[in-house]
């Protein structure tokens, strides 16, 4: 199809409408069953997926959370943005721990062949482990912390899951430093520290930021699992609680919010990443 005016706006809108339409068609609807005198005898849901709330129901039941996004009605009954904020804080903490450990680890991996050989099997084994598997281990590790145990376990899970892209990308970046740059450092007799700060780190930065961006995506992915299992307040915790309370409408609200935040975070990181790419 030929590009036309405003196609960047209209085409995505059409796509969204198609998906929402399909959802609405598949979703269930409440039907009131009346007897001969017109008294309500029962209510039942009909439709292809009867339990799935439709668009209207979702909106109506989500309204209080969306229209008062910062309300605080109780620990597990807060506005959606307030929940998101709580989740973001936790993710930020876990993410920074991941970067703090992952970046130097990646650097060592890139610099030392022996270290790579030593740790590569471990990394390859640990990397695909799901957050759902890490969390119980985190609980065990921080058993002594009492009240904070679940928070620490969540941080641990986010950090250990989100770390790998940073580790691996930094390592690749260090290995890819052109010999020319290192020759410059050698000819100038830069000290180890100066070689690191003036040559190696700047040369690796673009790779590091790719890792940082991927890590952030994973950190956000993990939050839901972590909050579900620990029951912490946040978008993920809220989602799980509403599921258990059989209030399905808000699950969709949470999914939309999680997706939206993930998308915004990724955009922000690619802006930062691009700045370093051109440098």
């Amino acid at each position: 199809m030929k590009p036309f005016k405003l196609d960047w706006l209209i085409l995505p809108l059409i796509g969204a409408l198609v998906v929402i339409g399909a959802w609405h068609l598949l979703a269930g609807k409440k039907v009131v069953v009346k007897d001969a005198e017109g008294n309500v005898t029962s209510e039942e849901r009909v439709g292809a997926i009867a339990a799935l709330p439709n668009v209207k129901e979702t909106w109506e039941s989500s309204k209080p959370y969306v229209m008062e996004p910062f309300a605080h009605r109780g620990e597990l009954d807060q506005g959606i943005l307030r929940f998101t904020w709580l989740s973001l804080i936790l993710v930020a903490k876990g993410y920074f721990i991941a970067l703090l450990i992952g970046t130097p680890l990646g650097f060592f991996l890139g610099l030392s062949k022996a270290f790579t050989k030593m740790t590569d099997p471990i990394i390859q084994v640990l990397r695909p482990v799901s957050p759902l598997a890490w969390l119980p281990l985190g609980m065990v590790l921080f058993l002594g912390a009492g009240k904070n145990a679940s928070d620490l376990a969540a941080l641990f899970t986010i950090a250990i899951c989100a770390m790998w892209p940073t580790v691996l990308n930094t390592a690749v970046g260090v290995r890819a430093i052109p010999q020319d740059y290192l020759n410059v450092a050698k000819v100038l007799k830069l000290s180890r520290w100066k070689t690191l700060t003036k040559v190696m780190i700047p040369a690796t930065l673009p790779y590091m930021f790719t890792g940082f961006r991927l890590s952030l995506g994973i950190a956000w992915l993990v939050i839901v699992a972590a909050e579900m299992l620990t029951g912490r307040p946040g978008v993920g915790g809220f989602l799980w609680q509403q599921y258990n309370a059989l209030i399905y409408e808000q699950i969709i609200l949470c999914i939309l919010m999680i997706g939206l935040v993930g998308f915004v975070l990724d955009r922000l990181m690619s802006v930062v990443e691009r700045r370093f790419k051109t440098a």
Partner: protein
Amino acid sequence: MAFLELKNVSKGFGPKGQRNEVLKDLNLSIEKGEFVAIVGYSGAGKSTLMNMIAGLIHPDTGTVTLNDLEIKEPGPDRGVVFQNYSLLPWLSVYENIYLAVDQIFPNWAVAKKQQHVERYIGMVNLTPARDKKPSELSGGMRQRVSVARALAMDPQILLLDEPLGALDALTRATLQDEISRIWQENKKTVVLITNDPDEGIYLADRIIPLTAGPNATLGPSFQVDIERPRDRKAINHDPVFKRIRRDVVDFLLSSRQQRTAAVTKKLVLPDIEPEDLSVTRELFGPKPRPRRRSEVKVEKVEVEV
């Protein structure tokens, strides 16, 4: 007594069995203040020779000495202009040179260092581009930054590895004149690597051909007894110039022992590390890994002529 001296230097790369003997039995001695040009085929080992003088790699046999001291590692007494400029892309022109000056004259006051940097940027006529990043410069400008950086280190000897290789003929001529002027102002010892005999003869006091590889070695020296300053136009008709050029070219042509022509093709590979999926991975062994750009610089194709 020679200032820079190479004695029976040989160098090869690669493990036993598939060893590539690049340089063999090189002997060279250069006096202080001399301008020597080394001219040879692409892929003969010119950069390898340069890296050895710079101290970045070590000869397999023989010795390289500067002032009678064996060269063991790189040092600021040898300013190098690398074949591919080797500027740090995240630093501006000024910062690239300042990094070198700051490193070599740590005791100078900041103002003095800044002034020094500005002076050398001016010397290569780059003052208007002083705050630009290398990516914003033309090839010739990058070459000049690289030359300015080497000169600003105030080295005892200047090593120029095909500093004008990537340039068009006009820019090349301008920069040749600039190098000639800078040399006459500073009277440093210069080793110029080039693949252009005319350039070597025009600039140098002495020109030495490097035979075709493998096992390349240095030929006889040809003293260039042409008055300075040399005139670019007049020199083409100078009988001395013509004779030297003929001798050098004849020597280079006859130096190809086998009747093969080495065609060297630069490979520019993307800077990524793909994984070879066709190779099954051992559980604990190293990853099967293709060679990276830093390992494979040129591809050699030999054809019968």
